[in-house]
């Protein structure tokens, strides 16, 4: 088991290096000289060269990459070009805001998706199964920005029961703070809930058709014990989907964060792109990618815990 985890961690290393290379290359993929956004238009060539030297843009690319990587590893992402504050001060709070939103959305989506999917599988082919499948497809297909605006129109504008945007004030009580989460989390959870419900339904109904389920019935086990067996078998594939959806929520919330003015990474990234604020873009993309990698690692480890065959298959 420890060996398996160490083995998976080894995989993470080359992926992380690849991701860092791409983030570093962002600077050069953007049109124009990376320094041109800092150098005033009317600066003399001497001043421009001075500025380039100060940022290290005059050195060979591999050296620039290693220097940049070293700074990143020691937690220094540079200074935001638009605000002049250290990038970490911008990105870390945004990251926390996004994480809490994505975490809440993933939990809600997983809970709703697993419950509906399992119910549908057990009611295979009956009316309730078809109703759940229809709801699932509707959930998967609804455009997030549209849903976000409809929710705001209903709950914030018409009924006035929930705040429409932002995170509230620092001094708000717990209930008030929580109320700001409701609409963004509901919006975020809808699509992944539909996807998870459909995938859980097919996994569970596949498991129910396996021979060992009949063997469990032949042993005279009560239904809830048989469900434990089914659940453990279906857990691996279901977790893989849930993990992927969580990772998607981390990065894919730009629209939702923009509609709800939620100060998270999506909101920040959106702003950084418009301001051509490269250090902020680099840091945000790098951190999101790292979260993606860690989420996948955790899913792999959890899958191994549920299905002993994964361990032997991946080692061999």
């Amino acid at each position, binding site marked *: 088991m420890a060996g398996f985890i160490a083995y998976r961690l080894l995989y993470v290393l080359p992926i992380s290096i690849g991701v860092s290379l791409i983030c570093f290359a962002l600077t050069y993929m953007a049109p124009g000289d990376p320094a041109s956004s800092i150098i005033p238009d009317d600066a003399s060539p001497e001043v421009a060269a001075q500025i380039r030297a100060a940022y290290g843009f005059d050195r060979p690319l591999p050296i620039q990459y290693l220097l940049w990587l070293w700074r990143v590893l020691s937690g220094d992402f540079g200074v935001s070009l638009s605000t002049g504050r250290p990038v970490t001060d911008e990105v870390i709070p945004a990251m926390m805001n996004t994480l809490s939103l994505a975490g809440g959305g993933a939990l809600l989506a997983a809970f709703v998706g697993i419950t509906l999917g399992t119910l549908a599988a057990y009611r295979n082919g009956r009316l309730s199964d078809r109703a759940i499948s229809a709801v699932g497809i509707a959930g998967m297909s609804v455009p997030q920005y549209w849903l976000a605006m409809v929710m705001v129109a209903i709950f914030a504008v018409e009924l006035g029961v929930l705040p429409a945007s932002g995170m509230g004030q620092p001094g708000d009580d717990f209930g008030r703070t929580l109320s700001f989460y409701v609409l963004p989390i509901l919006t975020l959870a809808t699509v992944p809930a539909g996807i998870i419900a459909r995938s859980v339904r097919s996994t569970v109904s596949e498991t129910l058709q396996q021979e060992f389920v009949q063997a469990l019935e032949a*042993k005279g086990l009560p239904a809830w014990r048989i469900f434990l067996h089914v659940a453990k078998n279906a857990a691996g594939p279901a977790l893989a989907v849930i993990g992927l959806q969580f990772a998607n929520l981390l990065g894919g919330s730009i629209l939702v964060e923009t509609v709800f003015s939620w100060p998270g990474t999506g909101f920040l990234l959106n702003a950084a792109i418009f301001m051509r604020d490269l250090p902020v873009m680099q840091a945000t993309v790098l951190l999101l990618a790292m979260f993606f990698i860690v989420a996948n690692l955790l899913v792999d480890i959890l899958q191994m815990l549920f299905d002993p065959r994964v361990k032997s298959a991946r080692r061999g």
Partner: protein
Amino acid sequence: MTLAATLAAQESAQESAQESEQAPAPAVAPPPLVQVENLRVRIKTPDVDVTLLHGLNFSLNQGEVLCLVGESGSGKSITVRSLLRLLPPGAIVEGSIIVDGIDILALKPAQLRAVRGPLIAIAFQEPATSFDPAFTIGYQIAETVRAHEQVSWADATRRAQDLLELVQVPSAKRRLDAYPHELSGGLRQRAMIALALSCRPKLLIADEPTTALDATVQIQVLLLLRELQRELGMATVFVTHDVGVACEIADQVAVMYSGRFVEMGPIERIIDAPRHPYTAGLLGSVVTPDVPGARLEPIPGAPPDPTALPPGCSFEPRCRVARPACAQAMPAFTQIAPLHQVRCVLAASGAAMGDIEK
């Protein structure tokens, strides 16, 4: 009481049942452990409507082995699964199945659960897919014990270890923590038998338990099963398509074709003097070491589609000695000797199959 006597009494099954109700059964004739009468199974779903079993009668005493022999699709598995009511959705079961005085078809779900395991247990054909891959062997045996008896996990696990030792799994204690995929096919089937024995069933059903195994492992498992069956005094219904396997283990053989018994009797009689052409055909397609170089004679054709059975004898289209009358009506299952029943018009003439073909 021998099975032979049971079979002889079967014609008047109703009578004997009444007898045993009215007066305490005489010491010479206790009621059989298993009594199946006019068992019919029909699968009816929106897509299919097919009758798979057309009225089976058999009984089995404690400690005896009945082998169901026949080709794939003859209804062997459906027959034994009916004993546990382990049938696909849409199955309609008619007739009566009495095991140890319990009317299986009348049981409510909770009562049925209580019967599965302690009274009737089954060892499946494919141990590879019949164990849950996500739990250890020890857990799956112990969980079965705990479903039926008030024992702790520790005691149930100890019982699991004893059972694995009973079925001769080497280093049983270590295997408790093994997952099914970590065992070889032979060991998995032994573990499957241990699981079936975990609640000391009175009736063991073995649904082709050796079919998925190598020939050498097959005979080991077969010998083990026979030994256990004798040691524990279980009644056993053994399903196989292999007459050679039946010879090893059976007291009594019932040959099935298209959802009916076509011949039933003690194993020696069936082997030495088969009276149904299908039985003779099955025996002719087995390799025998006594006659080296003998030609195998396969039965021509394939079993009929259960949704479109021929009007007369189901075997008539493939039968080498068929008469015009055979295509008219299904022959009755007639007793030709005190313990020997055959469903063939030619059997009444008294000639053994070999003679007719000559």
